[in-house]
């Protein structure tokens, strides 16, 4: 792998300031995307995947705001804070302006494919005119060539009769065809990075398979990097090179895809993999993760996964684990945020197992789960405080 990543995200924090309190949707995540690779961002609904990906374009909608961290793309600062002489945090002086973000980054450097192909296209304009508009905005093509480029791109993503389909409206396209149009939009702008935000979630499985094959093929042809946001471990296995598993605004495990599947280090990733429906098991044999993910407005103390973790011990309630490198594979680190792997200075081995109902052998009422997360004290991240 080349030394310098295409995109580097460091300690990114995005928060939503609501009436009910501050929602820490993305709470200090770090990851890299290298040229030509597909990086997965995996997690349950509400883990902060979409907010994280929109933060990369600086398109977080109010009342949300990026409050910390650094995003570097091709050596340019998309977001960065530094401490000024007055001790206050200021935007980095090299940080791209809103106008630069719009004209230089959005679309022509980093493009997106959204989740819902039904809603993402404007119902009152033809598919062709929408595609052409994005091409005209993001590429320097001579007059009139954008139309031809749009038609070629529709053909490229497998839309039959592109000349005729160019003049048609979104409602005349099926869900899968619309998703192909969105892919065409992204590729037509010739970006170096495409953020695919659950692009196959709204599609049925056969179409999902076609779309994944299409992206795989086009990705190799154009050598574009992808950030693939999904909750589906099956999709991850099929398409990603490296994976970041997110839980409640944090990355809990980060590894090349094979390493993640065959040498899982974090209990949450384990649980995610176990909860996948498989053809050799019936619904009764499904092994879902117990409970629901807590709100990001008041995350549990210590390790955020401890109320649902089958391996949780007393120490997990107190110690916020750091995302540490636990192994190396294919030249990339395998990081996991779990104190199980802290050989030194962790109380994990000595502390008693938590009775949170997450293990299969014990059945606790829901109230017991609540109290387990409620009574614990809040500690600072990663610090060993005894």
């Amino acid at each position, binding site marked *: 792998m080349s030394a310098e990543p295409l995109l580097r995200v460091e300690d990114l924090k995005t928060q939503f300031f609501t009436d009910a309190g501050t929602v820490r949707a993305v709470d200090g995540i770090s990851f890299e995307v290298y040229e030509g690779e597909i990086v997965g961002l995996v997690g349950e609904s509400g883990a902060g995947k979409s907010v994280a990906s929109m933060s990369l374009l600086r398109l977080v909608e109010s009342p949300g705001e990026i409050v910390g961290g650094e995003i570097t793309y091709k050596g340019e600062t998309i977001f960065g804070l530094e401490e000024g002489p007055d001790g206050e945090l200021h935007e980095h002086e090299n940080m791209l302006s809103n106008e630069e973000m719009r004209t230089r980054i959005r679309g022509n450097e980093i493009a997106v494919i959204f989740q819902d192909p039904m809603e993402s296209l404007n*119902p009152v304009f033809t598919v062709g005119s929408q595609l052409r508009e994005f091409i005209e905005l993001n590429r320097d093509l001579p007059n009139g060539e954008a139309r031809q480029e749009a038609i070629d791109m529709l053909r490229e993503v497998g839309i039959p009769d592109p000349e005729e389909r160019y003049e048609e*409206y979104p*409602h005349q396209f099926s869900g899968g065809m619309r998703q192909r149009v969105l892919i065409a939009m992204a590729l037509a702008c010739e970006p170096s990075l495409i953020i695919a935000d659950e692009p196959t979630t709204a599609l049925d499985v056969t179409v999902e398979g076609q779309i994944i094959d299409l992206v795989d093929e086009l990705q190799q042809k154009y050598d574009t990097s992808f950030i693939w946001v999904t909750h589906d471990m099956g999709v991850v296995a099929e398409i990603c090179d490296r994976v970041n598993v997110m839980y409640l605004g944090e990355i809990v495990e980060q590894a090349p895809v094979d390493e993640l599947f065959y040498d899982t280090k974090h209990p949450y990733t384990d649980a995610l993999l176990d909860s996948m429906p498989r053809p050799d098991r019936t619904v009764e044999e499904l092994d879902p993760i117990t409970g629901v993910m807590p709100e990001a407005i008041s995350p549990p103390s210590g390790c955020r996964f401890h109320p649902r973790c089958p391996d949780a011990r007393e120490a997990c309630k107190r110690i916020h684990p750091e995302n540490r490198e636990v192994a190396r594979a294919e030249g990339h680190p395998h990081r996991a945020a779990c104190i199980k792997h802290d050989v030194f200075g962790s109380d994990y081995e000595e502390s008693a197992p938590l009775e949170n109902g997450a293990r299969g052998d014990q059945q606790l009422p829901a109230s017991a789960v609540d109290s387990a997360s409620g009574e614990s004290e809040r500690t600072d991240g990663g610090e060993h405080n005894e």
Partner: protein
Amino acid sequence: MGLLRYTAFRVIQAIPVLIGITVITFILANLAPGDPVRLMLQGQEVDQEVIERVERQYGLDRPLHERYVTYMANLVQGDLGHSIHRDRPVTELMIQRAGPTLLLVISAYAFALATAIPLGIIAATRRNEPTDHVSRIVALIGVSTPSFWIGIMLILIFAIQLGWLPSSGLVYPWRSPDHYGYSGYLELAFQTIRHLLLPMVALGTLQMATLMRVERTQMIESLQGEYVKLARAYGVPERTILRKHAFQVAQLPIITIVGLNLSTALGGAVLIEYVFNINGMGRLFLEAIQSLDYQLIMGITIVIGAMFVIGVIITDISYAYIDPRVTYGDRD
């Protein structure tokens, strides 16, 4: 189905509605208290024989359903009957008065649309800011204040106190300048606008307030659409998003409101014509009611009803034309 066939289809669909309007109007007009012949005589003492002769002459002695059939037979031929009171054909009376009313209603709508759309957009983009709150209050006042009262207030302020604008009458742009003794078409146009300004605002305020709120709601919804997010993600300037991407989608309900509110506007015109002393169909309608001029009341009611139905049809057709998702009733 093509646009033409769709139009024809909608017109045929409207026929039962129009027949319904005539039946209800006919029955209501005849159930109203008061005897038209006696009213015509204005309290003079005449022989019973004379009354019976007049009733026979106008067919008032025959049973209701027979009279209705006769009326419909004439209506189909474009004859709306004869006004007993004025001794003139109803059709002729109405054609004379239709111009001022149409001028008033169309300009009120023009005023309402020209102000409501920009104000609605501004309110939507400055959501929950002072501008938005002011527009909400203005809209609330506009919706809840009767148009005739607004008319009277406008006259008091701009005609009587300030003396800037005339308080009554209209100048018709279709007449020659010589008719009013004006120097030329420029003065005619100027005077037309001057006379039209107050009644136009009085009648258009309600429409403006309604449309402004609808425009705001639609723009807010449209601006939150995924397609707007996508446009932003591809670097489309915010101006273009507002004017093109969000705007186009938001205009569809506006067309519906305009079409459906046509009846409200025509109803409002009746009072506004009265307040501003305009010789339009609305005032003719009021006079007809006061004098129990059955034929005239029915004629005007039917024409207003027909105009409403036509308004709905035009709305549907323009919808089908503007929104690509609306088909002309066929399935593919």
